[in-house]
């Protein structure tokens, strides 16, 4: 009736789609860094897209399933031999080693029926800086036991088409994994873009940036040339957003991620469009990226297309369940 953590991996936390409506009191939405992969993992086990799952980061955990259950792992590809992007029926007592990320950085392990957790402020996402939400407000540790909400949901496996042994012959598409790096991220101008001269704005767009090792769920630090702002006036602290690219005085940009601060006093040179943030979340430290400027209309189009791609994938999975 549960999952036991034998080894926690680098950073394994419970995440759903986050808590909205509290940025005015300084609480960011948080939630899955790659909500697309989370939605796919949930769909593969017949859950709603926003059910809480385990977010696994770069070095995966070792887990023991103490009861029969239906699980799916989506997002980054790990080398532990666990089948990706498909529903897998787990027998009681089965032990799983997820391994290391071979492509991408984050994967989501969803279990049919979800985990038995108490939402905090409307969400089961773990908010590490505030030490609340998810499983005891922290990353999973050795010996933790997460109960399933429902013991019978593994029966959903019986509905599935294309069964083969304890899994299926088909798989869902990994929508947020890049085939090669550098990945291309679309940006619109940030509020302070114009306070950088043409040379520095070009430098921002021409540079192949690398993700710094000290990046985390709050922000990805980018390694490259230092950006210099023409104006030296102090900036009034303003609202920030998922995907804001802010530049502190040292000139090294920071892309704000799921657990970002809600306001900031650093100049914001660019805003990464919403559709591209999940692909950025799949870069590990050392990962390479470039920026390309686009219009607000293009940003809206990209958002629409990525949602349509996800919806098509979710429909395809639902059909395998005979829906």
């Amino acid at each position: 009736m549960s999952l036991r953590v034998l080894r926690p991996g680098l950073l394994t936390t419970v995440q759903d789609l986050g808590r909205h409506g509290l940025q005015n009191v300084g609480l960011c939405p948080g939630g899955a860094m790659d909500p697309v992969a989370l939605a796919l993992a949930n769909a593969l086990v017949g859950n709603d897209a926003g059910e809480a799952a385990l977010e696994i980061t770069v070095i995966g955990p070792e887990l023991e399933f103490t009861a029969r259950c239906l699980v799916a792992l989506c997002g980054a590809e790990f080398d532990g031999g666990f089948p990706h992007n498909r529903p897998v029926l787990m027998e009681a007592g089965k032990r799983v080693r997820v391994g290391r990320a071979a492509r991408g950085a984050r994967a989501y392990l969803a279990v049919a029926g979800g985990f038995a957790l108490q939402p905090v402020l409307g969400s089961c996402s773990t908010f590490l800086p505030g030490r609340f939400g998810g499983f005891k407000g922290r990353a999973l540790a050795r010996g933790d036991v997460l109960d399933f909400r429902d013991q019978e949901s593994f029966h959903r496996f019986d509905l599935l088409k294309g069964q083969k042994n304890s899994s299926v012959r088909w798989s869902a598409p990994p929508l947020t994994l890049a085939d090669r790096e550098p990945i291309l991220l679309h940006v619109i101008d940030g509020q302070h873009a114009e306070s950088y001269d043409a040379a520095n704005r070009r430098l921002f767009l021409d540079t192949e940036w690398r993700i710094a090792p000290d990046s985390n769920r709050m922000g990805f630090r980018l390694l490259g040339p230092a950006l210099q702002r023409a104006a030296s006036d102090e900036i009034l602290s303003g609202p920030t957003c998922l995907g804001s690219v802010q530049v502190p005085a040292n000139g090294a940009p920071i892309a704000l991620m799921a657990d970002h601060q809600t306001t900031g006093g650093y100049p914001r040179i660019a805003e990464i469009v919403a559709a591209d943030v999940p692909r950025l979340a799949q870069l590990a430290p050392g990962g390479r990226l470039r920026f390309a400027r686009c219009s607000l209309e293009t940003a809206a189009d990209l958002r629409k297309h990525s949602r349509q791609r996800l919806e098509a994938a979710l429909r395809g999975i639902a059909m395998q369940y005979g829906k």
Partner: protein
Amino acid sequence: MVQRLAVAVHALARPEVHDVVPALGGLALHFHPSFEGNAQEAAAALVEACLDAGLPKEPDVLRTIEVPVCYAPEFGMDLNDVSEKTKLPVQEIVDRHAAGNYRVLMIGFAPGHAYMGGLDPRLAVPRRATPRIVVPAGAVAIANDQTVVYPYAISGGWNVIGRTPLTVFDAGRQEPSLFGAGDRVKFRPVGRDEFLRLEKK
């Protein structure tokens, strides 16, 4: 103005807008990623609709929050430093800080972390040269022309002059944050006994 506009936009309760965030440098409307269309134009239309309908009156929007503070030396770790820098005796620092009428300018940095304006200019001191690794939850601190109350035990470089027994941010509370942007704040000095009694509540 920004606070009154934020309250008005929030009251529209538009499903596509999931966060309305007032800050010193502007007002943010966060649209749900499923929103189709031009968010900039949509945001402008919402703001104009609110302005046309008339913003709520200031007294209807703004609360006054009384915050008990114990300024005893074991809580006000930097009182002596501030005293040296301002050339004011410790008691006068306490009196001047407690006499101030503060406004929450913005919430940011951490959940519930309120930046308050209205600090007596005589108390203006720069941040500490070396930030503390851990500033305790409830620490009342000053720097430049502002004062803050730390919601959690976190690192910080402000000059700590006291501590409140109130819980600034509690995720388990119906209203998790003690402060909201625009609130008026008064600090009330309390002794150790009252601090401990309030802390138990």
